[in-house]
């Protein structure tokens, strides 16, 4: 299938249509709104369903296969976060706090995007590896921890320089020490909050339960966690559409650079993710989901973490770009693109895969 055709057919799926519908509803200032309790419940439900499926598949395939992709994903997430920071700080001229906040928002993963991706590949008739759900859980805090650590280090470096210029520097503590000690209390809190946060708890909990119950145990609850899955995403995406629609005016305020960044970066990260995953031997669908993990930006978890850890950063920048630009772009355009890339490299499996990867990296 042609890439444009694939994007076109993706546009006409209920998920995307309801998302666009939500945007329109917000633009015409309708009072349409998904009740709070339901929009808080749905992410929990989606994560539970993702976790259960992941756990069940991990029972079939075992744990061992998961470690290499997981370590690679963590490494790439860290690298990409650093890369985002350099681009935002040097080319985008954002201040230190906004740069780190944005860099980690884009280095982190989006659970909602992940659910949409699962439904997308299911629609295309392929499956993905179950352990990707575990990678989703592990990846969630990684980019934030790095960004918070680096922000604290940079801040203490500034303080130290200021002191030096005033000639009051008597302690010989290195920046690193100050950075580490200041980060520790902050990081402990962030780590605790993100690890005990509802997203990771429900995800890990359902992975374990899925692993324990297996296919047989799942049968009795499959009507809720399997058949309702896409329908639940649709309802949630009405709400996401409404929120994104309310923020459309803010997009002008984030500036051209960030708009371009929120489209180019996910594409770059996602395509590299697909190629690397293919090189690691993941399936067609698994490679798409791996790419999506790296392409997606966090907009539900990010504000909760960053408002505490880097309060100086403007939330309007990172929420608006992640939810208003990157999320729609990812689910409408980038998913089909990554699917095409993945199909091409999987078709050409006999050709040297590392050739593709090195081409992608250069």
């Amino acid at each position, binding site marked *: 299938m042609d890439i444009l055709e694939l994007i076109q057919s993706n546009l006409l799926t209920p998920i995307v249509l309801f998302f666009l519908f939500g945007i329109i509803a917000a633009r015409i200032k309708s009072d349409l709104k998904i009740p709070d309790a339901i929009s808080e419940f749905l992410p929990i439900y989606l994560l539970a369903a993702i976790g259960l499926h992941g756990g069940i598949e991990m029972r079939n395939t075992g744990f061992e296969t998961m470690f290499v992709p997981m370590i690679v994903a963590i490494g790439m997430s860290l690298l990409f976060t650093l890369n985002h920071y350099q681009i935002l700080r040097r080319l985008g001229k954002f201040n230190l706090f906004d740069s780190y906040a944005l860099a980690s928002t884009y280095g982190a993963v989006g659970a909602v995007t992940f659910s949409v991706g699962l439904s997308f590949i299911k629609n295309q008739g392929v499956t993905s590896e179950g352990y990707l759900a575990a990678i989703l859980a592990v990846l969630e805090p990684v980019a934030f921890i790095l960004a918070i650590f680096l922000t604290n280090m940079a801040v203490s470096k500034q303080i130290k320089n200021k002191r030096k210029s005033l000639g009051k520097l008597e302690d010989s503590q290195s920046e690193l020490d100050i950075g580490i000690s200041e980060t520790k209390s902050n990081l402990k809190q962030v780590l605790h909050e993100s690890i005990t946060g509802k997203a990771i708890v429900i995800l890990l909990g359902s992975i374990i339960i899925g692993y324990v119950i297996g296919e047989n145990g799942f049968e009795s609850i499959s009507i809720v966690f399997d058949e309702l899955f896409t329908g639940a995403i649709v309802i949630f995406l009405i709400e996401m559409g409404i929120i994104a629609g309310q923020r459309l005016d803010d997009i002008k305020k984030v500036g051209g650079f960030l708009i371009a960044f929120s489209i180019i970066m996910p594409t770059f990260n996602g395509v590299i993710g697909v190629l690397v995953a293919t090189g690691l031997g993941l399936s067609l669908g698994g490679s798409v989901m791996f790419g999506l993990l790296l392409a997606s930006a966090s907009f539900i978890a990010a*504000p909760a973490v960053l408002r505490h850890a880097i309060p100086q950063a403007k939330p309007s920048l990172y929420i608006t770009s992640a939810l208003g630009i990157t999320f729609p772009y990812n689910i409408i355009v980038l998913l089909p693109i990554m699917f095409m890339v993945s199909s091409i490299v999987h078709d050409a499996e006999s050709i040297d895969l590392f050739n593709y990867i090195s081409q992608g990296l250069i």
Partner: protein
Amino acid sequence: MKLYNVKLLTVTCEILAQKNVIDILAKHEITGYTSYEVEGNGARGLRGQGLKNEKNVKVEVIMQEEKLQSVVEEIARTLFTNFAIVLYVSDVGVLRTEKFV
């Protein structure tokens, strides 16, 4: 019945600043407070719509005047620049002043 004069501190802030406010109160050995979700409009635009993390809360605390200054000072110093926050103080009367030390 005799009413004793104490101060009521009201802080309206974004929900993600609530924890900071309560931590500051705890630091000054104030453990009792009441909070509720609110919405409204202000310098940072309409608040209370959309994502849960973008809602506003109102935190009400009754305390003695002696503590008030240092609490207000710390909230102003640590939270005013980065968060959507408004605070004000009013005089209220209570029956059991020993509850609000």
